[in-house]
């Protein structure tokens, strides 16, 4: 059985649930927006074994029956009425995340694996280990160091280090005149990388690439900037596709959204690996069968146990970019 966990109206979840239903796959939806009749019980033994069950509107599903999970856990939804409901909803998320981090089943994605995305320069070092170039980056509280960086690289952007309030902006004259503000908080600057944005969704060993053409600095906010973003399905060179699969696997992310840019001289630069990608936006524009591939992966045979090969990294839940 496949479990889907998250907001019942969240488009990436909706598409995956529909794909599972279309295939006639046994599945359970745990909808965080409809939890009045939802419970979870977990029991761990001395050897680390874990048992338990979801109970959804009277239907009890033992966790031993679950073979895979696609989870997009988000903040509990405030619910009027029973004051106990808020406590139960918060505990539902906490216990589900605990289970997702340790369950010996196929999980997309384990919360513990998402933590690398909480620090962009931290993740950049991991990305580079997989063979991608990353943007030249300076995080500094020294205005002179920033000016020297800007002088050396010409066009520079700045963005958050953690991903909170994450909007990419050009370091233009207006911001240069206010650089003294970095003394209060080290800020991340990057050399602007010219080229074409390619968003890649990795699902297991499958790769779906989308070219994004826009004049906006950050295509995610093109509309806000009064610009258009045109999405087109595209193909990657085999070696680059392999690198994407390797990187996602190294980060223990069976589903990952990679933000790449192909420079005019053919260098592939990776900006970020999104651990909870909003693939539905890209699927709806290009027709790429990402949700079907995701369900194929969830339904696939094979070991889905916890990886202990590297210190686990946890991350906050976040709305997909």
């Amino acid at each position: 059985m496949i479990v889907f966990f998250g907001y019942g109206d969240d488009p990436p979840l909706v598409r995956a649930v529909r794909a599972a239903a279309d295939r006639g796959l046994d599945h359970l939806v745990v909808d965080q927006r409809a939890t009045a009749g939802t419970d979870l019980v977990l029991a761990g033994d001395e050897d680390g074994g874990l048992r338990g069950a979801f109970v959804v509107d009277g239907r009890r599903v033992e966790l031993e029956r679950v073979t895979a999970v696609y989870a997009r856990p988000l903040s509990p939804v405030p619910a009027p009425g029973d004051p106990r409901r808020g406590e139960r909803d918060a505990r539902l998320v906490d216990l589900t995340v605990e289970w997702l981090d340790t369950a010996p089943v196929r999980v997309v994605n384990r919360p513990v694996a998402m933590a690398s995305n909480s620090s962009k320069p931290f993740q950049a070092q991991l990305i580079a280990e997989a063979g991608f170039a990353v943007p030249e980056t300076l995080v500094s509280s020294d205005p002179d160091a920033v000016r020297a960086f800007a002088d050396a690289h010409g066009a520079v952007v700045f963005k958050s280090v953690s991903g909170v309030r994450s909007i990419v902006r050009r370091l233009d004259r207006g911001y240069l005149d206010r650089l003294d503000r970095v003394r209060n908080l080290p800020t991340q600057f990057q050399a602007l990388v010219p080229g074409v944005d390619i968003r890649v969704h990795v699902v297991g060993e499958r790769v779906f690439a989308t070219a994004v053409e826009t004049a906006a600095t950050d295509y995610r906010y093109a509309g806000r900037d009064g610009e258009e973003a045109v999405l087109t399905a595209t193909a990657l060179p085999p070696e680059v596709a392999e690198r994407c699969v390797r990187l996602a696997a190294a980060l223990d992310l069976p589903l990952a959204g990679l933000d790449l840019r192909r420079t005019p001289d053919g260098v592939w630069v990776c900006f970020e690996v999104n651990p909870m990608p909003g693939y539905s936006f890209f699927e709806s524009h290009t027709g790429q069968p990402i949700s079907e591939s995701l369900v194929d992966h969830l339904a696939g045979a094979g070991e889905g146990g916890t990886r202990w090969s590297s210190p686990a990294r946890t991350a906050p839940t976040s709305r997909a970019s």
Partner: protein
Amino acid sequence: MVTDRTRPGPGARTPAVLVVADPSDGGARAACRLAPAAGDGDRPLLVSTDALARAGWEHRVHADGRSSTTVRPARSGAGPEVVIDSDRLRLVWFRGRHWRLPVGPADADYAWSEFGALLVSWLAGLGDRVVNRPDGQRPSGPSWSAARWRAAAAEASWPVAPRTAATSARLVPGWRGGPWQARLPHDDLLDDRPTSVRLLLVDGVPVGSPSWPGRTAAGRRLAALSGCRVLGLDLDARGRVLGADPVPPLTGRSELAAVAALLGSTRPGAGERAA
């Protein structure tokens, strides 16, 4: 080519062994005082998290993923300038939990996240020259839940405390209570609060505890799984793991001596990541 960073002035102290801790962390202070000087005569330098938060930072990640960092804490009194240079560091033990940046209340949470993200990147760039490996969220070690720690302990062959938790207590086998409590969450490790004992592991070895024979192999395995050379385990009365903390309080002579020895054990070039 950008000049990486301004070189430290003559007379500046560029520590090889650095401990970062909250101002209230008396254990860190005591361990630094006890730690022997390294071969080059350099004693561990203790810097507070607040001092780092107010320091001058230049942290670079290059296109090939190499990182380099210079941190200049504000000078205090007549002491020498301190420049924390990633090239010079042989070992960093980051124990801080709290940092305050000079921003207004509306930006405090944001600034906390931003600075934490910088810290994890800096420490990750040092490779195995850190006592506890950071993850993307926590500079002092993995930001695991108690459940995850128990799972790791079990993987390392250390018994773990059984535990039942539920979103509604009525689902717990054998639970008895009234109708109101029946639909409140239950967690027997939180609600029943079993007596716990704290055991310090240094490089996986239990410190000062001859009553835990045979646990060294499990401790070493857990240290490897978690990337933590210093780890505090919470154990129940039967020695089963309840949880763990990468920033355990340090109390008692044997604990302080063990971590002091770790701080003083660095060898020039030991564990340094290739530039």
